[in-house]
């Protein structure tokens, strides 16, 4: 399985420790709220699955990252915010 994450600033992605992410699979595009470890190279996370990164306007970055899902969280990551 491969996954995708929408993010503009990859420096905000902490590598090597579990972080909460809102990702989707690339087979049927189902959203998943997970705790996962990510890395920017296969060497850093050999057991990881492919994680494609997209800018928040949809453009796909050429090189994938890697992800190991530690836990699937319940529901979706809901936040407060304005309309728009």
């Amino acid at each position: 399985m491969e996954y995708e994450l929408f993010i503009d600033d990859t420096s905000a992605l902490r590598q090597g420790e579990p972080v909460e992410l809102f990702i989707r699979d690339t087979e049927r595009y189902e959203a998943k709220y997970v705790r996962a470890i990510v890395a920017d190279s296969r060497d850093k996370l050999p057991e990881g699955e492919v994680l494609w990164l997209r800018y928040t306007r949809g453009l796909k970055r050429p090189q994938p990252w890697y992800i190991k899902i530690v836990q699937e969280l319940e529901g979706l990551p809901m936040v407060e915010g304005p309309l728009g």
Partner: protein
Amino acid sequence: MPFKGLRDFIEALGRSGDLVRVEREVDWNLEAGAITRRVCEIGERAPLFLRVKDYPGHRMLGAPLATYRRFAVAMGLPPDTPVRAILDEFDRRSRGRLKPRVVDRSQAPCKQNVMRGEEVDLFRFPAPMVHEGDGGRYLATFHLVVTRDLDSDWVNWGMYRVMVHNRNTMGGLILPGQDIGRMYVKYEAADRPMPYAIVIGPDPMSAVASCMSPGPGETEADIAGALNGEPVEVVRCETCDLYVPAHAEIVIEGEVLPKVRVEEGPFGEYTGYRTSPRMPRPVFTVKCVTWRDDPIVPLANMGVPVDDSHIIFSVTWRQDVLNAVSKFPITGVYVPPESAGHVAIIGVHKVYEHIAQHVADAMWGSKMGYLMPYCIVVDADVDVYDMGQVLHALFTKLHPIRGVHGRPGPGHGLFPFMSLEERRWGKGAHLLLDCTWPFDWREGIERPQRAGFTTIYPKELQERVLANWKAYGF
């Protein structure tokens, strides 16, 4: 000839030569979107995808109203009806009102199948991945969303994009300036969920009516009846007190949660760009789905003009502008589809100086006005429906300084020309291009004479030339 649903409209498209039945299997994941996009960009016939990968028994209809021909068919007019005649007839019908007729569940094809609660699985339907890089599968691209005001009987129909998050949750774009936004903020203030019904694949005039804005207290359902010439048949929802077109393909019922957002988008939009980023937006939980046997999912692929959105806006937004400026001595209003609905061209009899500003102010004061940042005003001798004439006026009569009137105004998060900060807060701008001659320019002195066949030759010579046209060898 009114259509009860999408299916009899599809049959009519087949009869008029505006439909291609695609027998080859097509993937819901981008392929159907790519085909539909190309169809829009070359003005092709609407594709009816008969075999959808992973979804046996399901069909998809691309670009249902992406040409004026198909719009004419949807109105029951001959497909080659001129644009101006389509607009005039739409204007006439849209001033009427016909309330929906409630039918029993047994007479509602949209109730042929049902799943509720834990059974709900939106992946049962071939929701298309429309554009590469979209934020999700947009099941709702040619549809209407039904909601009721919290503290009145006002029911709104509107077409707002909605994508699938997971098997029972969707996300959508709701803007505070939209009617659904006005309703939603009331529910949020009361900390209550807002019941909704998403009607996918209604009859075409119901979809079109949902893109109008008659204002608070009026429901687009009554306009849909007037456009069709007979009441829309509606049926009560399974889980709430909303009514939906009985002949729709799929109906999704649920609630928009108050005060919470989940990341939604991005989506290739009607402006021709993917402008707004993935952002936290309202959450649509799903309680129940009903659908017809062998449902047809319509796919309006928004992007570079001309697609369904541009044709519909050129009619419905134009109608709002027309209603707003009709008290002025106007000769016509046109919202060219190629402008993505961003400009209204208005012809006026220039009976006083600054009438262009007056008319533009009225336009921008209309409900839909804020969606149209540009206004071109031309003299009465310019046919607003003829872009050649409009361009000629624009580049010969518009004074580059005196005729250009820009100013701040309400904006829209999808306007590509706005900065990120302006999009976030809806800080927009308006531009009036006044292509009328100054009122104090005297005929024969300051005012140039138009050098056209009908304006610079004697009438009797024109008639003689026309009478002898074939004799000249043409």
